[in-house]
């Protein structure tokens, strides 16, 4: 294998790595007691915008969100069609006018996942690579 081929393979590996990073997919994680909850896209939106505050199986919805970063940006864009800034404003507006209880926010996915695992009723999002067996992953229907 000559040097030119090695360079090409290296470039290809970098390309694959960069594509895999760019396409990292956020997933919804919930406390394991909620693994039988049924979600569709509209319900996810209602949950993360504070319109749905209790689970169908009973118990309060406790939101956990990442403060910032590409995972938060991707998830919020896909699920509630808001930027992180717009999402924060939505919740500031609710919390400061008596309209809702603000989400718990976390600096890292690990902290968020541990909180969801330990908190009945908790729901949040992490990159799929960071969802382990301590939490349940819910895939919205439709």
């Amino acid at each position, binding site marked *: 294998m000559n040097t030119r081929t090695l360079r090409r393979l290296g470039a290809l590996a970098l390309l694959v790595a960069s594509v895999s990073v760019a396409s990292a997919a956020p997933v919804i994680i919930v406390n394991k007691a909620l693994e039988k909850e049924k979600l569709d896209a509209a319900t996810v939106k209602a949950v993360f915008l504070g*319109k749905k*505050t*209790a689970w169908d199986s009973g118990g309060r919805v406790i939101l956990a969100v990442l403060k910032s970063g590409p995972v938060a940006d991707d998830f919020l864009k896909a699920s509630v*069609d808001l*930027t992180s800034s717009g999402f924060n*404003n939505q919740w500031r507006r609710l*919390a400061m006018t*008596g309209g809702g*209880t603000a989400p718990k926010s976390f600096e890292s996915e690990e902290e968020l996942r541990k909180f969801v695992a330990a908190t009945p*009723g908790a729901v949040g999002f992490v990159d799929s690579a960071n969802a382990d067996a301590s939490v349940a992953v819910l895939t919205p229907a439709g």
Partner: protein
Amino acid sequence: MKIPSYRKHARGLGFATLIVCSLLAAKSRASVAIENTDVQIGGFFSQGYLYSDNNNFPTKDVGGTWNFREAGFNVSDTIGAHLRVGAQIFEQSFGNIGEDKVILDWAIADYNFASWFGIRAGRVKYPKGLYGEALDLDVVRPFVFLPGAVYNPILRDFIASFDGAMVYGSVNALKGSFDYKIFGGNLPAIGPAKGVAEFYNNAGFYAGNVGSISTKSVEGAQLTWNTPLNGLKFVTSYSFFTSLASDGPFYAYPVVDLTSNFDRFSYTTFSAEYTVGNWVFASEWQRQGGFITYQAPPILPTVGGTSRWDGWYVSAARRLNDKFEVGAYYGSLYDDFASGPGPQGYQRDSALSVRYDFNEHILFKVEAHDIDGTYELFNTARIPNPNPKGNNLLLAVKTTLSF
């Protein structure tokens, strides 16, 4: 130069704000909330500076004033799956209005049966237009002042909240959703110190100032259509006061009282907002007014007429990056029964704003207004304008700490 004592006080508060801001900036990522409990604490503190070149507008600010600050502090708790309780206190100094008196802004018990039906009771924020419930939330917009054509800052304490109950909910339909709010109750006590009193004082019917203002009830509804096009929503709001009455010594003969009464004073507001990427576009139109009667027996028999004014604006805001957001709007407010085409019948406001987020807790804003017309430019003891000019430049600088 001798500084009046209230200015020293205001500047002291300003410096205190800067110190607090600096301390928080040093640990800007620290959470102020109480962790691991259901109790949430939040709040904000703003200090600003207003400069107006010709007229005292919207408050007493010709030559500049530091009397431009507000603060709120709230606590809320969730009990079980459906019940939430909370309250916020608020204080404001806005020129000669507010005077840093602490008031109860909202205090609610909210039971959410399902996403389509909930009940909120107590002192509840007043739903009107896109931003009626968020009048004081500096942190959610780039603007220092919401467009005055629809959100007159002088009326802040008149339409901020009501005592009563509201049912609300959200229903998915037509590939989007509809949010509704239906409410009833009455306004908290309205004293002559409130900003709304300037409307009565400015009319010139009273010797000195209006003595009392009251309402019998407030009722209303709001419907929001979150359309299938992501980020686009339309809102319609209607509310009215019954028996909006005032009382005070009649200017022509002060030993008798003049009373005024709107059987029904209504607000009708149509709004649209489109959020796309980092842009937010908004526009609202609002009509307000009603049929008012005056009487001062036995001097003045009952006389009446319609008092009504319309306002609209278009605005655009864009977040440029984590630090900067810019915004602009044009608004027009006009008297439907103006006596002539002169500047006393309209107010046209062009505004440009820049917001800088120092960190997630502290922001700064600078805003400039070019205002044509003198409609709703008061000439009262608290907001004197004995010789109003047709054009006015208003500059506002503001910093807000929130947590």
